[in-house]
């Protein structure tokens, strides 16, 4: 028997694979391609207090082995989410992680309080979105601020709190320690790296927003390094992400220290990516005769 179960911040996942926020819609868009009940968890797109239209298009650019996006937290707002999207989601036997964003700490707290008593598994605190002027990365670049936001939201939250960190910092370990000190139950890393693409012919940036967040295989080496560094420095579990396309990629993140992983950009490439990753992990475990997936977490021999 191969045991793929893991636990993150008290959430039991039947396998270590969730979706990266913003790349899997509210889940139902993928129901045609994927048996959602097979997922370890579903992490939905960032939710804010008020509805948001996001940034003007073009919002995506292709870069070598990566993409840039500048969606900018477009979402229907927490009330509509609760009324229209959540009821669809909770039909599935899968823990739901809600990614929360806001302009101010108080906004984060209010979103959390509106969701506190609903059947969701955890909050993922998004203090790392590079595509908005307020909140987002501005909160996630300074350890003091990370600790403060985490603490305030944690105080008002009845669910486990996962803090999603920005890679656009000098020391990801300082960010991670700050989130721990603030009371985070787990960490998600990494969000996107701030980047830019230019069309030499028109002499214009490709994204209307000029800059955007870089994701996909291109950033995997950076994400792996950050997971590795943070795993050595803190004791709370890590959800690793950044360019995971295959089961082997997922295994690499787990060896580096991630307890679970999230599949993001890969969903845009292959609608069945998240299942392919789960199957790939299973294959690897079989091939290497690994009984429990927990045994490979942090098992890198370095």
């Amino acid at each position: 028997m191969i045991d793929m179960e893991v636990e993150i911040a008290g959430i039991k996942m039947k396998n270590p694979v969730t979706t990266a926020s913003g790349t899997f819609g509210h889940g139902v868009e993928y129901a045609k391609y994927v048996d959602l009940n097979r997922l370890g968890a579903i992490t939905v797109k960032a939710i804010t207090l008020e509805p948001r239209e996001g940034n003007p298009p073009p919002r995506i650019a292709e870069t070598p082995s990566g993409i840039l996006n500048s969606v900018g937290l477009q979402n229907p707002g927490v009330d509509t989410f609760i009324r229209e999207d959540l009821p669809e989601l909770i039909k599935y036997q899968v823990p739901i992680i809600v990614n929360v964003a806001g302009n101010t700490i108080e906004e984060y707290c209010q979103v959390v309080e509106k969701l506190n008593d609903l059947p969701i598994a955890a909050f993922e605190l998004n203090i790392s979105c590079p595509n908005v002027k307020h909140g987002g990365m501005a909160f996630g670049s300074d350890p003091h601020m990370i600790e403060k936001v985490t603490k305030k939201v944690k105080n008002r939250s009845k669910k486990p709190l996962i803090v999603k960190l920005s890679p656009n910092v000098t020391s990801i370990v300082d960010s991670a320690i700050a989130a721990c000190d603030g009371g985070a139950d787990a960490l998600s890393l990494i969000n996107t790296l701030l980047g830019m693409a230019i069309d030499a012919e028109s002499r214009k940036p490709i994204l209307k927003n000029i800059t955007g967040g870089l994701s996909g295989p291109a950033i995997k080496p950076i994400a792996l390094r950050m997971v590795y560094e943070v795993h050595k420095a803190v004791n709370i579990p890590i959800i690793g992400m950044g360019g995971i396309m295959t089961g082997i990629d997922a295994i690499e993140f787990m060896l580096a220290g991630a307890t679970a992983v999230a599949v993001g950009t890969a969903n845009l490439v292959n609608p069945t990516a998240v299942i392919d990753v789960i199957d790939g992990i299973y294959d690897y475990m079989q091939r290497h005769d690994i009984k429990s997936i927990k045994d490979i977490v942090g098992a890198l021999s370095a």
Partner: protein
Amino acid sequence: MKSSILFNRLLAPGIYQMAFSCADIARSASPGQFVHIKLNDSGHILRRPFSISNIIGDIVYIVYQVRGSGTLIISRLKSGDEIDVIGPLGRGFDISRTKNRALIVGGGLGIAPLLYLSRMLSNKSEVFLGYKDHLFLVEEFEHPIVSTETGISGYRGFVTDALKEYLESSPMADIIYACGPVGMLKAVKSISQHYGIPCQVSLEERMGCGIGACLVCSCKIKAEDGWHYMRVCADGPVFMADEVIFDD
């Protein structure tokens, strides 16, 4: 889905037609929908969207222009090669709106999906095709009205000039369907408003997932309280021209 390429041939300078067999897509596709094609190059990770240009039996046809490195890679595929394609995606033209007569207006590569549309509407449509210079696909339409910017063939001028001229003498139609560059769509929209004829336009935007999840392919659509971003891939690519807000 893996599909096998039947042919991938040059139609005009830089413009290719590809045919691949895919029963699933062929069976369920309607005009104006698109397919999303993966490149066989690990450095290019996004799929490329192309309108379904025609369906014959199990065979799906697309017509595309080489614009950048992705379409260049696609243009090198050969008969027998496999492609990974998902589709049909999006909401196409609403053909139920055509009772007696539709006007179909295409410019440049926007002509591609109109072939399938015109075949579905058969003799209930009048087709206007606008090219820069080189014609392509024109022989597959029945009696199209052709214009070229250079005047090489057909009317000299824009396709919208031909449309206007036509409407002056025969100003009635159930609907106008249009696909082409934004400038052309804007012109068609204003012509349709002038004549009070409903109009559907097919939009383009850079895409990620193609299935409505990633929210990158936004276009501005009128709403009671102003406008909302809607998704070209899932809410469109075909929208009522009246509702589309063309920026700039």
